[in-house]
């Protein structure tokens, strides 16, 4: 269908907080991502709904052969909402704020990998990286890295001044955000079809659902799986469901016995019923995992790897290989890890029992889970939202020495993996990279310290008054949080 | 004379626990214009119920089951509510027993006064106010212009009672029901109110039903007297005739209650140690001084009556003796030994020796304990008796207070009459086997007949056990009946004290004199004579002085 202009779009979104602000460095949940990157601000690049990378404020980019030096050509004639015109200074200053003294930015690792930023012209910047990274343009689409007007960043953060399709009208943290279409946007008629948008913070599941059903909003995120069947029966709304990179894991510390023994890890991998987990924890709204963190939304997802299955014999076999008859271990879980983590742990406990493994499920308090349990307890439940690129994912959670390497996965466990990681990063040839990433996925699958039983779908509800493109982004909820840009009134 | 009110064969019942119990059984009552009828009977006889029925009104839970009430040709029992409301306040008015409780504490006197005339459209508000002030003046209230603008709590009891009479008069009704208007007042105040009521009723030639349980009072007020007993009419006759020749036995017994009189014991030898000596005691509640340099002795086997108007400090003296209120200065001696000022520092034996009987038997007995437990506790506590021995002792005590042990030992206080409760209180005091008992107004909440029984019991116990009593009262008749010595108190000081006979023979201290002369007598002309003697202005002054 042809997109039409007009209308006031309202969405009820979860993940809002009273401490929200327009500071991209602090964004972590849907409400602000959809408001900032999804409407008011732009980044240099953007992942399109089909997963390809396109330019946003950058028109084009090229790399040196070793993928160390990247030159970005910026879009011309772009203005901020306050009238200031956009240029190279804005990019450099906006990136520097992530590595400024005392700044606490989630994108700090990305930006600190840049050794030098150079303004080549009013609309051209050059980045020299510490080491080659073929995915660098992808990293520039990170939702933390928003472009602010240079010299007035503070004011821009206070008022929400960006180059995005929509201009802030009012913003009440934790309550509501209203914005109207910015008239002369460079994306012109190709995006941003609503006259104005209103994002309403509704953290309560029931209230959100009610708002959609009573027509008080046009779209909501995170539909409770339980009610999905009923929602489908309602003619006024439809359900969008996409499989992304979001995955739930059980991570073991590979430097702590007994998990330092690869045979124990393998025994555990065969002792879990993955399909049952998807059915019961996700109610079928997801995909079984294969113990590597690369999902269908990733470019080099190795769909052809054999699927790990529940197999008591193999499990016992590996247990014997490890010199054990039976195994008693503690598994820490809390619903802070992911919704249903405790139930998942209990299911795991039941299936492992058939393999002679006794899992003692410890229900940890939700508060302080991330600081007291994760990375500290040898075996615990974890949630990952996934990353847009393989390298990004691996270097966050599997690279030797990475702070969030929650299995303490290092070259002692697999020197090959760590080596491949570096090679693939600097490799610009796509086919070679594919092969390398496939091998890495396989290593994790067979030897890795993380059990990844399932990938969870994003399930969201949309009123039939709203039309959407055929392909819905699967990197994030709500069409990669860009419904304001891509949807329109039917 | 024309008939104003005619009640024929009135039957009234009240509801208790889903059952209707008769209160008035077929009483007739007639009243002519300008006539005053006295209605007399003991408490619970149904006087108030009958008086209210004369207004066509019954309290919640009470109904007129049979009979007719015709007021000036209007049948009240079947009249529409609107018609009755129109009569009430305008043509029939009511003066309640306790003016303090019957004035609404939230409104000024004058506002309550003008309410009836304004609602009944008899007068405008301004007229009613002016008229109210005029009535206050006639009733000899002090500052008539200003007093109406006070709230009820800012006005003394006697004045309130007169203000209520004024309020009843506000629409110049044809009939006023006075329901024990002076019962709650001191004898000295009572005179003023009686005089004022009689005056105003005569001036406006209003018919009235005057309810009381005090014969001497009704003798002053009524043209005719009707005697009620448990809802039945006993007899009715013109006042003088009734006083001179009561026909029925019950009426005669009413006339005779003051018969009990105990001979005064000879004074104790001057060198005898008193059981209790109150020695120059000054006491205060917080900063408010109440007792000033009070001294008196109580000797073994004697009864010392402490009299005085309300608030004069009688009970406070008792609290000092028991140790509940440690005095500022002075001391209390028991048989020559000083008693610690605070009861908490007294030994068990010292506590045992001083016992107390309270005025309100209702609050003095724990309603959740049986008679046996109440009396048994001190027996066990002080004497250490347990089991059957304790039970024996309790039974003996019940015998001593003339209650049948088998019948009463397992009852709760709620199942006893007022007089019986008071007897249990006495038994509890006796159970400690004390030498000295304080009786704080033990008879003032009781009917005369019952009260007399209690007095006789106390006297008998004194003779048998050699007890000493401190007998607090404001009723001079009681003093006359039981006391050996009398202490008169006023405003926290002892005004006069001495043997009873001395006290009742002139010359008196002026205050004692006022007290003595204010006690009504059975003579219908007593009030007239007294007023003539004292002079009307005198009473007005006294009233003003009481503010």
């Amino acid at each position, binding site marked *: 269908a042809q997109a039409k202009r007009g209308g006031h779009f309202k969405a009820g979104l979860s993940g809002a907080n009273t401490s929200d602000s327009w500071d991209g460095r602090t964004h972590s949940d849907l409400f602000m991502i959809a408001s900032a990157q999804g409407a008011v601000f732009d980044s240099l690049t953007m992942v399109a709904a089909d997963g390809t990378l396109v330019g946003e404020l950058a028109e084009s980019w090229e790399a040196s052969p070793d993928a160390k030096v990247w030159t970005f050509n910026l879009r011309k004639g772009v203005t901020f909402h306050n009238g200031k015109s956009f240029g190279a200074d804005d990019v450099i200053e906006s990136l520097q704020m992530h590595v400024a003294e005392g700044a606490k930015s989630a994108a700090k690792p990305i930006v600190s990998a840049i050794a030098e930023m150079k303004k080549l012209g009013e609309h051209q910047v050059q980045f020299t990286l510490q080491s080659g990274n073929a995915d660098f343009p992808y990293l520039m689409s990170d939702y933390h890295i928003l472009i602010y007007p240079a010299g007035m960043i503070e004011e821009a953060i206070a008022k929400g001044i960006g180059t995005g399709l929509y201009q802030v009208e009012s913003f009440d943290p934790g309550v509501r955000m209203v914005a109207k279409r910015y008239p002369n946007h460079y994306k012109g008629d190709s995006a941003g079809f609503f006259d104005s948008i209103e994002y309403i913070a509704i953290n309560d599941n029931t209230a959100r659902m009610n708002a959609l059903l009573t027509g008080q909003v046009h779209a909501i995120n995170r539909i409770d799986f339980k009610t999905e069947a009923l929602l489908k029966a309602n003619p006024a709304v439809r359900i969008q469901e996409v499989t992304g990179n979001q995955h739930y894991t059980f991570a073991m510390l590979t430097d702590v016995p007994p998990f330092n023994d690869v045979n124990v890890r393998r025994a555990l991998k065969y002792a879990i019923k993955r399909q049952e987990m998807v059915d*019961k*924890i996700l109610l079928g709204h997801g995909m079984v995992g294969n113990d590597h963190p690369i999902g269908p939304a990733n470019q080099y997802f190795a769909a052809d790897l054999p699927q790990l299955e529940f197999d008591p014999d193999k499990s016992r076999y590996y247990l014997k290989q490890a010199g054990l008859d039976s195994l008693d271990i503690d598994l820490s879980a809390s619903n802070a890890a992911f919704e249903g983590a405790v139930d998942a742990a209990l299911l795991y406990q039941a299936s492992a029992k058939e393999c002679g493994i006794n899992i003692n499920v*410890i229900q940890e308090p939700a508060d302080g889970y991330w600081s007291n349990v994760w990375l500290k307890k040898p075996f615990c439940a974890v949630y990952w939202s996934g990353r847009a690129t393989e390298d990004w994912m691996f270097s966050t959670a599997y690279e030797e020495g990475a702070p969030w390497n929650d299995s303490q996965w290092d070259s002692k466990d697999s020197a090959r993996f760590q080596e491949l990681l570096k090679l693939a990063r600097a490799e610009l040839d796509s086919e070679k990279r594919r092969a390398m990433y496939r091998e890495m996925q396989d290593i994790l699958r067979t030897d890795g310290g993380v059990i990844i039983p399932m990938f969870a779908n994003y399930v969201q509800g949309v009123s039939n008054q709203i039309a959407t493109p055929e392909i819905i982004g699967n990197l994030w909820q709500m069409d990669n949080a860009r419904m304001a840009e891509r949807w329109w009134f039917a | 004379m024309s008939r104003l009110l005619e009640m024929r064969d009135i039957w009234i019942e009240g509801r208790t626990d889903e059952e209707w119990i008769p209160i008035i059984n077929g009483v007739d009552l007639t009243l002519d214009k300008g006539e005053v009828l006295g209605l007399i009977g003991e408490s619970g006889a149904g006087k108030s119920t009958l008086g209210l029925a004369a207004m066509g009104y019954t309290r919640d839970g009470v109904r007129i089951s049979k009979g007719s009430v015709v007021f000036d040709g209007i049948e009240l029992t079947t009249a529409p509510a609107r018609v009755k409301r129109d009569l009430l306040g305008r043509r029939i008015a009511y003066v309640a027993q306790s003016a303090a409780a019957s004035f609404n504490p939230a409104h000024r006197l004058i506002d309550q006064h003008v309410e009836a005339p304004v609602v009944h459209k008899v007068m405008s508000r301004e007229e009613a106010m002016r008229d109210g002030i005029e009535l206050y003046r006639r009733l000899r209230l002090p500052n008539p212009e200003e007093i109406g603008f006070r709230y009820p709590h800012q006005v003394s009891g006697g004045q309130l009672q007169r203000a209520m009479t004024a309020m009843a008069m506000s629409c110049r009704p044809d009939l006023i029901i006075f329901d024990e208007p002076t019962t709650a007042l001191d004898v000295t105040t009572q005179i003023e109110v009686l005089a004022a009521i009689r005056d105003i009723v005569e001036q406006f030639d209003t018919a009235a039903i005057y309810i009381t349980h005090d014969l001497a009072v009704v003798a002053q007020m009524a043209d005719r007297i009707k005697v009620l007993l448990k809802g039945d009419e006993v007899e009715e006759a013109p006042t003088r005739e009734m006083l001179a020749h009561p026909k029925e036995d019950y009426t005669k017994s009413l006339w005779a209650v003051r018969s009990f009189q105990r001979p005064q014991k000879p004074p104790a030898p001057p060198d005898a140690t008193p059981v209790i000596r109150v020695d120059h005691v000054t006491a205060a509640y917080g900063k408010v001084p109440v007792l000033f340099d009070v001294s008196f002795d109580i000797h073994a086997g004697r009864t010392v009556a402490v009299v005085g108007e309300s608030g004069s400090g009688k009970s406070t003296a008792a609290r000092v003796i028991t*140790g509940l209120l440690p005095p500022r200065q002075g001391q209390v001696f028991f048989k020559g030994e000083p008693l610690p000022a605070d009861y908490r520092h007294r030994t068990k034996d010292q506590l045992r020796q001083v016992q107390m009987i309270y005025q309100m038997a209702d609050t003095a007995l724990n309603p959740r304990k049986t008679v046996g437990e109440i009396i048994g*506790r001190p027996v066990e*506590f002080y004497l250490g008796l347990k089991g059957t021995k304790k039970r024996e002792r309790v039974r003996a005590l019940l015998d001593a207070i003339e209650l049948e042990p088998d019948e009463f030992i397992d009852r709760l206080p709620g199942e006893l009459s007022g007089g019986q409760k008071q007897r249990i209180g006495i038994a509890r005091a006796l159970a400690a086997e004390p030498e000295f008992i304080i009786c704080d107004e033990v008879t003032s909440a009781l009917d005369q007949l019952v009260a007399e029984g209690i007095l006789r019991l106390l006297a008998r116990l004194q003779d048998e056990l050699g007890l000493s009593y401190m007998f607090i009262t404001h009723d001079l008749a009681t003093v006359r009946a039981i006391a050996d010595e009398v202490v008169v108190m006023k405003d926290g000081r002892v005004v006069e004290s001495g043997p009873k006979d001395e006290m009742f023979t002139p010359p008196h201290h002026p205050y004692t004199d006022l007290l003595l002369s204010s006690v009504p007598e059975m003579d219908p002309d007593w009030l007239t004579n007294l007023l003539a003697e004292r002079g009307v202005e005198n009473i007005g002054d006294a009233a003003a002085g009481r503010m």
Partner: protein
Amino acid sequence: MSFWATILLSLAAIAVAAWVFRWGGQKLTNNRPFFRDMPFGVAFGYVFGAVALAGVVHLYVLARTLPPAEANKYFFFRLAVEGFIGFSIAAWLFRAAGRRIGTQASRKLFRQMPLTAAFGIMIILAYAFVAIFAGWLAPYGQEEVLGAANVVPGGDPAIGGDPRFPLGTDQIGRDILSRLIYGAQNTVGIAFVTTALAFFLGGSFGFLAATLGGWLDQLLSRFVDVLMAIPALIFALLLMTIATVWAPKLGIPLTVFMVIIIAVIDSTRVFRLARAVGLNIVVMDYIEAAKLRGEGLGYLIFREILPNAYAPLLAEFGLRFCFVFLTIASLSFLGVGIQPPLADWGTMVRDLAQFINFAAFAPQVAVAPLLAAGAIALLTVAVNFVVDWMLQKSSGLKE
């Protein structure tokens, strides 16, 4: 606007009807006192009541006769009416039975009992029965994981139901009906223990303060003031969050903490009442008599004061119980109350609440959450009815 206009017009119509009703009544009955003395407001009330009743009947008939799709709208109305009538009849039968069976005293009690109180007693007995025999009544265990997870309530396979689980199953396939039944055991039992503890604490300290007075009274009262100035639910929320760390550390179930926390917070209210009641009793002459006798504190409190405070305390116990019950439910609703795997009604309401949104076209599914919430409401209503009656009886007001 037409909404308000309709309302105004109907009120006017009722007013006219009321006038006609009174006038007609007077004429027809020859001015019987009932009609003769009737104020207009009362006449209005009667007509208004009659109209409301007629409306109820009309809607009920609609609910029963309309085709199912449209009747959906009146489904809950129908349920409410049927429930009301059903419970009324049950209560009436219960009272009638009580009047015939039992001892002299119990029969007398039932004779004086209003229907509401009979209803209350009946419900309380029923809950006690369900709580005690939960294991026997429930079709499945409260923690039993059955094959089918997330069965939609209502038992209609078309929208994801299953007749074997009339109220559906939860996330991991536990039968909701069974959990509802076990909920009686857990929720009611815990609330009862909590209330009892609150009474023990508040009552003892309250009477102590009343009897001793002085600085102890001041201290306790001020302390209670402070606790009461912090909103109960919020304070409980705060403390429960703290307890979530300590519970696993100390190895004590979180529920124990909850009982203690709520009991302490609630005991402040009990303290106030106990102190007030105590103060009223302490001024009685019989207490003075006991003090003058030299009795100790224990005797004063337990033998003299307590027996006289039973009536108000018992009534308060009922009210407190409801309060505690609701607090626990609210805490569970907010996610910090009774912890899984124990079944509890507050949590169930929260988990099932979303089904209410579908009431318009699938009313059966909305029944489940309302049933859990209704189970809470029903018991508190019942307790309140009984308390109300007891208070009325003890206050001796003849009405």
